């Protein structure tokens, strides 16, 4: 009897869902599955376990080994060549970019769906979660909260008004002789009146066409060291100026500002074959990097 009820429920649920489903999937996708409109490929300058050198506040060079680098992406928007801005829902497009999930070339892919067909000139996204979003509609935070809660709430400050940790960078100090502060640990959020949320805008080097028959990718370099040594006019931040070692608000602000400085589009792969989200989720991040020269356009 109980089983019968269960099946009846399932059957009716299915019926209800089918009859209620207002099919909005008008992206011209003839195949079953969710067409990937574009792929944002983040190629990091460092992988986990890589060594790098930063300058501390006493001008000493510190040798470090990267152990964690991750950030939340939210509020993705693309702009058409006609200056129309298309905002993607955070329940679709928000993502946690975690270097721990990178492939052997330190690339982490982010799959964008539901972008209307057309010609686009730029993309923007937030690093972290804006206060507006965090204190706004809870329904629009379903995916963001799931991302933040991965790995035992690794991107959650439960005791902070804005629950989201926007980004983390951690590294082990390899310089055993130093008397300076030891390991690198910088976590950014909106805490104590210092809001580390920043928006990044990337202009495409050429027009990006979104169409059902292709899933173009946007190959973007992520220069992790530039968080500390940004290009002008960014302000340099000593690696021990914030975080565990009692920093200043100014250093935190400068460091957050530098997030906008670390992303740079390398090139587009405008004509890559169409893929479905369900397929890439199945072999999650197991892709080979198909950086074939013929698909480049610098």
């Amino acid at each position, binding site marked *: 009897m109980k089983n019968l009820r269960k099946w009846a429920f399932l059957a009716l649920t299915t019926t209800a869902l089918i009859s209620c489903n207002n099919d909005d999937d008008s992206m011209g996708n003839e195949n079953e599955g969710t067409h990937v409109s574009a792929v944002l490929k983040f190629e990091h300058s460092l992988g986990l376990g890589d060594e790098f050198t930063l300058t501390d506040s006493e001008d000493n060079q510190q040798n470090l080994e990267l152990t964690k680098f991750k950030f939340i992406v939210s509020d993705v928007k693309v702009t058409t060549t006609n200056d129309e801005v298309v905002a993607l829902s955070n329940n679709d497009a928000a993502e946690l970019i975690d270097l721990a999930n990178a492939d052997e070339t330190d690339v982490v892919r982010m799959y964008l769906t539901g972008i209307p067909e057309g010609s686009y000139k730029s993309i923007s996204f937030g690093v972290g979660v804006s206060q507006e979003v965090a204190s706004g509609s809870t329904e629009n935070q379903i995916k963001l909260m799931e991302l933040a809660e991965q790995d035992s709430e690794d991107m959650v400050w439960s005791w902070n*008004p804005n629950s989201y940790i926007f980004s983390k960078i951690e590294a082990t100090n390899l310089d055993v002789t130093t008397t300076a502060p030891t390991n690198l640990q910088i976590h950014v959020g909106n805490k104590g009146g210092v809001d580390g949320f920043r928006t990044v805008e990337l202009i495409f080097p050429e027009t990006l066409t979104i169409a059902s028959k292709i899933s173009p990718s946007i190959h973007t370099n992520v220069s992790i060291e530039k968080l500390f040594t940004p290009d002008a006019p960014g302000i340099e931040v000593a690696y021990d100026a914030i975080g565990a070692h009692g920093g200043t608000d100014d250093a935190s602000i400068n460091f957050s500002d530098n997030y906008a400085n670390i992303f740079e589009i390398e090139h587009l792969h405008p004509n890559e074959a169409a893929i479905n989200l369900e397929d890439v989720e199945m072999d999650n991040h197991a892709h080979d990097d198909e950086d074939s020269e013929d698909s480049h356009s610098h």
Partner: protein
Amino acid sequence: MKYNTILFVFLLVMVSCGQDEEEVYTDFEISFEQPANFPATTYDFEDNPITTDGFILGRKLFYDNRLSLNNGISCAECHNQSHAFTHHGHDLSEGVHAGVVGTRNSQPIQNLAFLEDFTWDGAKEMLFDQPLIPITEEVEMDETMENVIAKLKEDSVYQELFTAVFQSEDAINSVNLLNALSQFMGAMVSSNSKYDKYVRGEVGGSFTDLEKEGLALFQQKCANCHSGELFTNQEFINNGIGENSSLPDETGRARINSPNPFATVEELKTRDDYYQFRVPSLRNVIKTYPYMHDGRFVMLSKVLDFYDDDTYPLITKMDNLDSRLIQTNSNGEEILGIPMTEGEKVAILAFLETLTDNEFINDERFAKPN
């Protein structure tokens, strides 16, 4: 048979594409009612309206051990209805780990729909995500949200309830879990104490002379901070409660306000919000013993002795002691606290007794469902 009826209603809801149906499967209805003498609500009714079925789901979650590690305890472990949803006489409370206690006294769950922020240090500004703290804190429930969600998804009853309440397929997720808890807690309004009936001129609201004297004294001596009908100005102040040597990591509001998530206790001690705590509501105060953020005073009379400062326990004067607790006598000498005679304390205590809301404490809608 009852189960069949419930299931049938859910099916109806599903088939009719999730429009609000009659809640025929309950013997009561929840609708948020604004007490005449209360301030405006802060609860976000637009984002998460309180419905009867949402309330029932939230209540089920509130009383469900699966929200904690190894299914050890539920929210109700430290929030007992008989004590206005505090932890019956505990200063601090054990979580899921035997012998490991938290650092703060369990606070009442009442009138949360009117509060600006939550917990003793104001860590949260929305009722919505407050439960993230107790669920994930190691000294409390020490569970991950991912695990809670996975456990609930194994339960077909929860699948049906979440789908019915949030009207979507696969509705068990962190946001909906928190929203259901919010609906339950948001609906928990305590507004029918003898005091309320007195100010509203209702039956059962006649004060004795002593209670009237206590009210007048309270307004004169206590209501600067315990103000309004919630009996709190919702400020964070250093009230002179000294450091607790057994809780050396306690910094009060400083930890929340510091921009540095890794700030040390020594660094936080230099802030002017060090050891500031929320001015608590005094509703049901007789039932919510012990008192202060760490529950160090068992008796309410001790709290008055503390503020009086004539006898032990004494006020500790840190640099940021709230200025309302520093006065100057006629000789130009500094006096800490709030001078009260023993007779005045008796009257004030008599008044505080009138803040007990037995209807709230015995309201079966808030009790553990059968």
